[in-house]
């Protein structure tokens, strides 16, 4: 179903094969393929469109609508900074500034070495421990700006 | 007269000597776009939109100003012409603040239409904008130089048509703006607020001071009892705002449209026009009897009042002391009518729809408050503004049903309707004065001698006095447009005016050509509106003001008699001598009122 | 069952399924709209049609809110007006103020609304969305800055044409309508039909306008400029000058074109007649010699691109005939050049088309059989009208003129090419004569007329029952193609397909606005023109007969094949993209 030239690995083909050709599977498919590939490339969108019998535009429209989907490659580590009201009033802005300063990039950007991508999200549901950030799937709450370099340092070393 | 032969785009036509290239092209049925050109006025050739190519000539010529000569061969559709015209308009656009979407003239703008016609799709000359001068000081006219394309049509009407001369180009080159002397504000110079500059403006650089918002606010306020009056000239023009041909008489649709806006009562200024005739007619008779100042001059046109106050303050005693019908209406609405229906004057909101921008100034005059400090007329909408409000209300004007004015202030006669046209007040007055003086029934109510678009008209009406004191030859004169008024005033100044009664209307053609009327307004359109006015008059059962039953009832119930005490309090006014110089220029002794 | 409600206090009887808008319109009550379009399912996104419904907490979008018994609606209450004004103000705050240089100036729905609501100030002074204009397509230009996100183009492309080239991307304030994955229009599957332009309320979508090049050619004394006008143009161009839809202005249009300076004004109708001769002969050949059936018409270039992309396997069904535009172009630079003795390299061939896909068609590499580019420039009806305005031409008041020879003569059969079912009817008129050897008494073949999306008919041509189908609009075309694939149309002989709803009269280059009502009026004008003509069958066109005599020989001759027939290219929907990807990397 997927031509060789598209460069899909067999894993991806395997994932796609799991799903029916039902447009309702679009979001789950995007989730799973992104988990596998890190982001959703144009080729992947094309493959999905073909699989689900829809247009590339439709897939693209969906992929760009949701903040958890990425149409560009991201850094090895994703730092999500919460900008919810709860985090905000507990000093979220200072945390965001500290993270930006520590990584030297603005939200939406990826570090030169590809180590980190920085994002601002609306709310992570961690209002009880505000202010909070997430690095990959790890959560850090009740933060102060001083804690930021250490936290990020761990990931920098790891990668 | 000598004719010459001119060939335009291979079509040969004969035109009178002295014609311009534009005249020749039009005779050949060839459309040449224009912008600064005004029919009937000498062209400046300033905008260069009407460029054409004359065979053998060096460059392109402005066809509106370039004289045609015998045997001349003209081309209007060459590439050179096209490109040049396009560039000219593009240059205009580059110095024009582009905000069509929020411009009062959008979709009725000559520049917009030209840009569309020429298919201009890019603005290649982007850079600095010329000086921005926004003047909102006047109660009637708002100026915005950032939209001005310097065509000078306003200068021409202000100076030549109205002889007011307050607008003129100031400074030069890219920095040129059209403004009163020393770029003063309109409120500080002898502007008469007539708004003729607005109707002449091709773009949105000149517009009326809008009262729309205050009217919407009153309509949305449940506390307010909102009544509206409509001037005679509005019904003969408002249809044009909705795509109907000029001269469409839409009185009843207009009434229906106003009801859709939510006015509590839709009344008619015509009612107080009839009243004006009774007051003013009696004032004339009184002056004739008692040897008062003659000629007596009408006082219902506020632009004209401004003019005489500024330019001929010494002649103020000639003015009738009657307020204009608009203000008579306002005064009665907040006394007689408010009392009648039990509404407090402060909760009565009185709106008038006028063909006029000077009415806005008039309504704001300090002396126009009958009840304490409450203005008699709270808001004045031009015909254009009223139409716009209907558009905002989603009114499909052409499909409105016919509805009639409310009573009692909506009852009127044909004599009142013709107030809208030049000569109309005179004719209406004569209909009544004649019957009062002679005691006869006037068979033919049409005094055609005072009708028509001519600038100054004169007539003598013979009347045999009922009281048996012999014949009276009433000599009258009628002028419209202030430069014509100026001629009559100069005659009076020179002692050469032996008239009894003079009607003066500020705007050419009378109120139907007012500064608040639909744009464009041309002589042809004025003529059509006048025809509609007389058509309305002809169709009415009652055509003499003194036969208006509602007016008679008003006298009986409230006023007593014409020129009575109550009348003087509510319906008459005084005038203020003013200077023709800007307020901050120290007056010469001699310029002050004698 | 009637539903009773009141609108502004006035009692209104509505039907079940009515929205407030439909009920109000039927009752003659005006409600402003913007994202609503009568051809499309309501989307309710612009909120301009908000009205007050008694008992509702919020205002309701009249275009999609269903009526209910006893409902009380206010269409212009103070809060409705205030809200609408605020909404339009919000749109204006994010819209470039450049009406004066916009091709939709004075014909823009946003401009009209701003004027209707008397908006004189935009209170919001913040950021405005900036974007580049996409001029990659040969037919459709996109200016996202002027887009107000009404989704009309998206709905048109998806629902009417089943192409779905345009989509909303990103979200919130960043939402943009984009082709494919935010690509240029030229690098996605787009059939160039321009239906999106027709339904765009602003200047966000416009056609690729070659008028300045045409002016240059006209003004260039070394060039001989010939122009052809498609059948559908004459039934619509009057609208651009304020005439009611359905005004026939053929003669005036010819006068105008001559005034503009075209050297010869000729008619695509001539080659429409020629198309019938070739295509009819091809059909007869296929039927008699067992060729691929059903044969599909090939005169609509948007349709051609559609089948090339989506059903390349069905390409053998397509007639090999070029479209009348391209036949004309090929003849202009051969036959006509020969006849007039003008060097074909000095001939500039311009066509005026109701169509934006024609702009693509004339650029196809195979369309150079004359040895030159057969058709140099394609103007839409709108662009032709604009050029007339630029020339100061007041079309409605012009006298009438005749087309020039030799490619100007035509029959009623050619005229009806302009609407859906017309090619079929024209073909049947001629086929009847060829097959039966007798002429039809009543040339009006009502069975193939009408507005249904897919129509089928069996027409007796003498003894032979000819099974025919007609489809217009690509979503309907898709149905037919699926039908061919699954065998539903296996015993059909001939199927006419037009890319645009209503056929060419509803083309993407036609005057805005468009609606079913307007399309019907144009179709009526077309049939009236047909009725008014003395010659109503293509094979009776003496100029066509002469052309065969002098130049082509006979239908399907060698010369015909060389100049009037073509090949098709199967297209891969992915390769459009692949090219793009390569360029990027």
């Amino acid at each position, binding site marked *: 179903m997927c031509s060789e030239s598209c460069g899909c690995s067999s894993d991806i083909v395997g994932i796609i094969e799991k799903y029916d050709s039902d447009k309702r599977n679009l979001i789950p498919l995007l989730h799973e393929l992104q988990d596998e590939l890190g982001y959703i490339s144009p080729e992947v969108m094309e493959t999905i469109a073909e699989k689900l019998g829809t247009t590339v535009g439709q897939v693209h429209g969906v992929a760009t609508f949701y903040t958890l989907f990425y149409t560009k490659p991201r850094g090895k580590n994703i730092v999500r900074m919460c900008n919810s009201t709860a985090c905000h009033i507990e000093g979220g802005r200072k945390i965001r500034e500290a993270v930006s300063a520590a990584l030297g990039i603005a939200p939406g950007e990826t570090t030169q070495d590809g180590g980190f991508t920085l994002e601002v999200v609306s709310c992570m549901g961690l209002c009880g421990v505000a202010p909070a950030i997430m690095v990959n799937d790890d959560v850090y709450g009740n933060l102060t700006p001083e804690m930021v370099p250490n936290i990020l340092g761990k990931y920098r070393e790891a990668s | 007269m000598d004719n010459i032969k001119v060939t335009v785009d291979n079509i040969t036509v004969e035109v009178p000597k002295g014609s311009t290239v534009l005249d020749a092209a039009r005779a050949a049925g060839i459309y040449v776009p224009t912008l600064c050109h005004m029919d009937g006025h000498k062209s400046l050739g300033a905008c260069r939109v009407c460029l054409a190519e004359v065979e053998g000539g060096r460059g392109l010529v402005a066809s509106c100003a370039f004289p045609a000569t015998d045997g001349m061969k003209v081309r209007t559709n060459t590439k050179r012409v096209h490109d040049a015209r396009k560039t000219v308009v593009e240059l205009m656009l580059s110095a024009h603040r582009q905000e069509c979407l929020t411009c009062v003239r959008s979709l009725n703008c000559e520049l917009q239409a030209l840009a569309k016609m020429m298919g201009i799709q890019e603005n290649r000359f982007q850079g600095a904008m010329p000086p921005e001068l926004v003047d909102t000081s006047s109660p009637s006219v708002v100026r915005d130089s950032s939209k001005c394309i310097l065509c000078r049509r306003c200068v021409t009407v202000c*100076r030549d048509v109205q002889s*007011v*001369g*307050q*607008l*003129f*180009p*100031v*400074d*030069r080159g890219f920095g040129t703006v059209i*403004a*009163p*002397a*020393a770029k003063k504000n309109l409120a500080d*110079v002898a502007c008469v607020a007539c708004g003729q500059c607005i109707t002449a403006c091709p773009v949105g650089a000149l517009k009326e001071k809008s009262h729309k918002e205050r009217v919407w606010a009153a309509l949305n306020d449940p506390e307010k009892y909102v009544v509206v009056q409509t001037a005679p000239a509005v019904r003969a023009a408002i249809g044009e705002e909705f795509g109907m041909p000029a001269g469409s008489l839409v009185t009843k649709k207009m009434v229906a449209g106003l009801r859709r806006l939510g006015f509590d009562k839709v009344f008619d200024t015509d009612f107080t026009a009839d009243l004006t005739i009774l007051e003013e007619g009696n004032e004339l008779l009184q002056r004739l009897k008692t040897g008062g100042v003659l000629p007596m001059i009408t006082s219902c046109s506020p632009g004209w009042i401004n003019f005489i106050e500024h330019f001929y303050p010494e002649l103020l005693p000639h003015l009738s002391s009657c307020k204009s019908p608009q203000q008579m209406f306002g005064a009665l609405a907040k006394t007689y009518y408010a009392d009648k229906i039990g509404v407090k004057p402060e909760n009565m909101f009185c709106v008038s729809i006028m063909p006029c921008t000077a009415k806005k100034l008039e309504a704001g005059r300090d002396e126009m408050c009958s009840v304490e400090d409450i203005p008699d007329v709270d808001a004045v909408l031009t015909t254009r503004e009223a139409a716009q409000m209907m558009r905002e209300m989603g009114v499909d004007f052409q499909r409105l049903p016919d509805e009639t004015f409310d009573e009692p202030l909506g009852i009127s006669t044909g004599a009142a309707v013709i107030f809208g046209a030049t000569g109309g007040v005179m004719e209406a007055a004569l209909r009544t004065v004649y019957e009062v003086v002679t005691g006869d029934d006037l068979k033919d109510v049409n005094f055609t001698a005072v009708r028509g678009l001519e600038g100054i008209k004169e007539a003598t009406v013979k009347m045999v006095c009922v009281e048996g004191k012999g014949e009276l030859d009433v000599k009258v004169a009628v002028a419209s447009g202030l430069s014509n008024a100026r001629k009559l005033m100069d005659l009076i100044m020179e002692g050469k005016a032996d008239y009894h009664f003079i009607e003066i209307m500020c705007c050419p053609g009378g109120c139907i050509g007012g500064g608040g009327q639909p744009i464009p307004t041309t002589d042809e359109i004025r003529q059509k509106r006048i025809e509609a006015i007389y058509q309305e008059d002809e169709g009415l059962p009652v055509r003499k003001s003194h036969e208006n039953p509602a007016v008679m009832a008003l006298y009986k119930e409230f006023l007593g008699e014409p020129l009575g005490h109550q009348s003087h309090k509510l319906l008459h006014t005084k005038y203020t001598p003013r200077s023709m*110089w*800007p307020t*901050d*220029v*120290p007056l*010469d002794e001699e*310029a002050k009122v004698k | 069952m009637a539903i009773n409600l009141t609108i502004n206090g006035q009692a209104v009887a509505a039907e079940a399924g009515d929205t407030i808008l439909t009920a109000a319109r039927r009752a003659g009550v005006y409600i402003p709209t913007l994202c609503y379009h009568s051809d499309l399912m309501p989307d309710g996104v612009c909120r301009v049609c908000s009205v007050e419904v008694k008992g509702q907490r919020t205002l309701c979008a009249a275009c999609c809110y269903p009526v209910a018994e006893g409902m009380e609606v206010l269409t212009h209450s103070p809060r409705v007006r205030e809200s609408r004004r605020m909404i339009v103000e919000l749109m204006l705050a994010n819209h470039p103020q450049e009406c004066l240089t916009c091709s939709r100036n004075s014909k823009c729905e946003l401009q009209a609304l701003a004027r209707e609501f008397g908006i004189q100030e935009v209170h919001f002074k913040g950021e405005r969305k900036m974007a580049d204009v996409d001029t990659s397509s040969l037919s459709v230009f996109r200016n996202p800055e002027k887009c107000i996100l009404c989704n009309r183009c998206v709905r048109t492309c998806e629902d009417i044409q089943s192409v779905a080239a345009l989509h909303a991307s990103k979200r919130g304030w960043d939402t943009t309508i984009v082709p494919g994955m935010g690509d240029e229009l030229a690098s996605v599957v787009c059939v160039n039909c321009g239906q999106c332009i027709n339904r765009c309320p602003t200047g966000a979508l416009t056609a690729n306008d070659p008028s300045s090049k045409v002016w240059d050619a006209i003004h260039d004394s070394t060039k001989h400029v010939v122009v052809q006008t498609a059948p559908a143009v004459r039934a619509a161009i009057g609208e651009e000058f304020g005439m009611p839809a359905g005004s026939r202005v053929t003669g005036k249009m010819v006068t105008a074109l001559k005034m503009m300076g075209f050297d010869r004004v000729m008619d695509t109708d001539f080659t429409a007649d020629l198309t019938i001769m070739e295509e009819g002969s091809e059909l007869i050949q296929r039927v008699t010699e067992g060729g691929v059936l059903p044969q599909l018409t090939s005169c609509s270039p948007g349709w051609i691109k559609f089948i090339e992309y989506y059903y390349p396997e069905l390409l053998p069904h397509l007639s090999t005939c070029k479209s009348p535009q391209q036949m004309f172009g090929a003849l202009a630079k051969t036959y006509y050049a020969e006849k007039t003795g003008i060097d074909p390299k000095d001939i500039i061939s311009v066509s005026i088309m109701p169509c934006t896909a024609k702009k693509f068609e004339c650029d196809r590499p195979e369309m150079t059989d004359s040895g030159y580019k057969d058709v140099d420039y394609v103007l839409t009806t709108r662009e032709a009208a604009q050029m007339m305005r630029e020339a100061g031409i007041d079309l409605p008041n012009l006298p009438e003129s005749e087309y020039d020879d030799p490619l100007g003569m035509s029959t009623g059969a050619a005229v009806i090419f302009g609407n859906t079912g017309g090619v079929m009817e024209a073909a049947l008129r001629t086929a009847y004569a060829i097959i039966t050897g007798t002429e039809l008494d009543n040339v009006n073949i009502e069975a193939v007329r009408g507005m249904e999306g897919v129509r089928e008919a069996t027409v007796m041509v003498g003894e032979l029952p000819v099974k025919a189908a007609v489809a217009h609009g690509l979503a309907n075309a898709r149905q037919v193609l699926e039908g061919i694939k699954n065998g539903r149309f296996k015993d059909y002989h001939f199927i006419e397909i037009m890319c645009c709803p209503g056929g060419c009269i509803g083309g993407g280059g036609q005057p805005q606005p468009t609606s079913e009502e307007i399309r019907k009026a144009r179709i009526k004008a077309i049939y009236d023109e047909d009725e008014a003509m003395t010659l109503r069958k293509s094979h009776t066109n003496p100029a066509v007969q002469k052309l065969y005599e002098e130049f082509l020989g006979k239908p399907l001759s060698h010369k015909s094949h060389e100049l009037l027939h073509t090949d098709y290219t199967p297209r891969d929907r992915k390769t459009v993209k692949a090219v793009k990807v390569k360029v990027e990397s």
Partner: protein
Amino acid sequence: MSSHTCECEAKAKAAQEEEARLYEELDVIIQKHKEVKGPLIQVLHAAQELFGWLPEKAQARIAKGLDVPLSEVHGVLSFYSFFTTVPRGKHTIRVCLGTACYVRGGKQVLEKFQQELGINVNNTTEDREFSLEVNRCVGACGLAPVVTVGPDIYRRVKVDKIPEIIKKYRGS
């Protein structure tokens, strides 16, 4: 104290009388030009000579005398760079910024004048000694850059010569 007041009053009275005299003179000029065709510019010239500048009152007087709208009087005078509606210094320094002068350092010359006089273009020094203006070509391009002070013309002006020029006129 009282003598001081007296002095003031006397001064004011003198100024008033002087002004009245000037206006009478202006009226004479207007009368003289009234019959000429297109008299406005001639009168404006004379008036500016008389007052040193064109006060609004004088403009109004001219408008009235010649029976043209004041807006036109102002419109005309604002067109010509020679006329001024603000009081001028005793000496008007005009730096030429025509193309030739400009390329030969006119701009630097202007800057130096601004610096030395402490005023911008079209302004007058507080002591009413100097006004600074710019003009576009006086027709002496061969000798650029050119500066005029009143009727005097300075050619090939060097920046370091400027204080000297100013000094020459100061207090004279």
